[in-house]
C-alpha cells in the first residue's frame, strides 16, 4: 500500500518570513482542529479574511504557498483550505481563485477535487461554468456533482 508523506517539510516552513510562517501555522492548526461543516462558518475563515483585509495580494501568495506545501502531503487539510478559499467572495479571488481551482481539479485525491468543484459552485458565473464543463472527473459521484452544478449555474448565469 502507498503511504503518504506524513509531515509538511520543516524546511518549507523555515523558508517563509515570520508573518507568513505564523499565518501558515495558525491556518493549518485551525483547519486540523475542527472539521469543515457544510454551510457553517469555520475559524480558519477569519484568519483568511484578516489576511485579505491586511494585504490581498500577499494573502493570495501565502495561500498559494500553503496549498503547494500541504496538497501533496495532507490532502484532507488541503481540501479544508480549499473549502475556506471557496467561501471568499469572488471579487477577492478572481483569476487567482480560478487558477487554484484548476490545479485542484487535477489533484489525485477526490476530496481535493470535490473541494475545488464546491469552490467553483460557490463563486458561480461564466468562468466557473466553463471550467466545470471542461472537467471530466474519474469518479462517478463527482461527475454527477459537476453535472448538477453545471445545471444550477447555467440556470443562474445570464
Amino acid at each position, binding site marked *: 500500500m502507498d503511504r503518504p508523506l506524513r509531515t509538511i517539510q520543516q524546511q518549507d516552513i523555515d523558508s517563509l518570513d515570520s508573518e507568513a510562517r505564523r499565518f501558515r501555522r495558525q491556518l493549518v492548526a485551525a483547519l486540523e482542529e475542527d472539521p469543515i461543516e457544510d454551510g457553517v462558518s469555520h475559524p480558519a475563515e477569519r484568519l483568511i479574511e484578516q489576511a485579505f483585509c491586511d494585504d490581498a495580494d500577499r494573502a493570495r501568495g501565502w495561500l498559494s504557498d500553503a496549498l503547494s506545501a500541504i496538497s501533496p502531503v495532507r490532502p484532507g487539510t488541503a481540501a479544508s483550505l480549499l473549502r475556506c478559499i471557496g467561501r471568499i467572495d469572488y471579487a477577492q479571488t478572481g483569476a487567482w481563485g480560478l487558477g487554484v481551482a484548476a490545479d485542484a481539479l487535477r489533484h489525485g485525491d477526490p476530496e481535493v477535487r470535490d473541494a475545488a468543484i464546491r469552490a467553483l459552485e*460557490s463563486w458561480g458565473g461564466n468562468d466557473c461554468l466553463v471550467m466545470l464543463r471542461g472537467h471530466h472527473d474519474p469518479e462517478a459521484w463527482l461527475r454527477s456533482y459537476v453535472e448538477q452544478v453545471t445545471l444550477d449555474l447555467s440556470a443562474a448565469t445570464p
Partner: protein
Amino acid sequence: MLARKISFGKWRAKPYLAADAIRADAVTGCLRTRDDTLSFWSCEDTPDDLDQVFLALATGSSVSRFETMDIVLIAEADLDDAGVVTEANEGDTAVEDLKARHIDLVYLDLDKLAALARIIAARVRVLHARRTAGQLRRLVEDAVVVGRLRPELLNPELGDRLRARGTPD
C-alpha cells in the same frame, strides 16, 4: 430510516488503507459526538422525503450559507442490532413541522460508535444522497413560499443570502 449529514469524500477508500477500511477522518470528522450523542433525522427512503431532511439541515441555526450537503440513510433495525439507543429530541431547524423528526443516538461509547461507523460505511458504498447549494436554496425558497418557513427565523446571514437571490453563496 434515519439520516445524518456526512462528508461523503471522507468515506471513500484510500490507497494507503485496506479497501474496506473505515478512515479515521470519517469517524472523527463525521461522527463527532457531543455528550455522547449524535444527531439524526427520521425519514423515508424517497427523494421527496430526503429533501425534507436536507431542508431541516439547511435551515439549522448555525448554517450561514447554502453549500452542497451529503446525507447517509441507515435502517433503524441495524441500530437496534448494534444496541444503539435512540431518543426523540426537538431538532435545530427553522422549519417548525420538521423539528419533531429529529432523533438523537444517545449513550454512545466506543463500541457503539465503531458499530455505527460500520453501518454507515456499508450504506455509503450503496447509496448516499447529495443536494447542491442551488438545490438547497430552492428547497428553502419553496418552504418560504408555501408558508412553512419564516425567513426571519433563519440564521441572519443565510436570511441575507436568501434575499440576495442570484448572488453566489
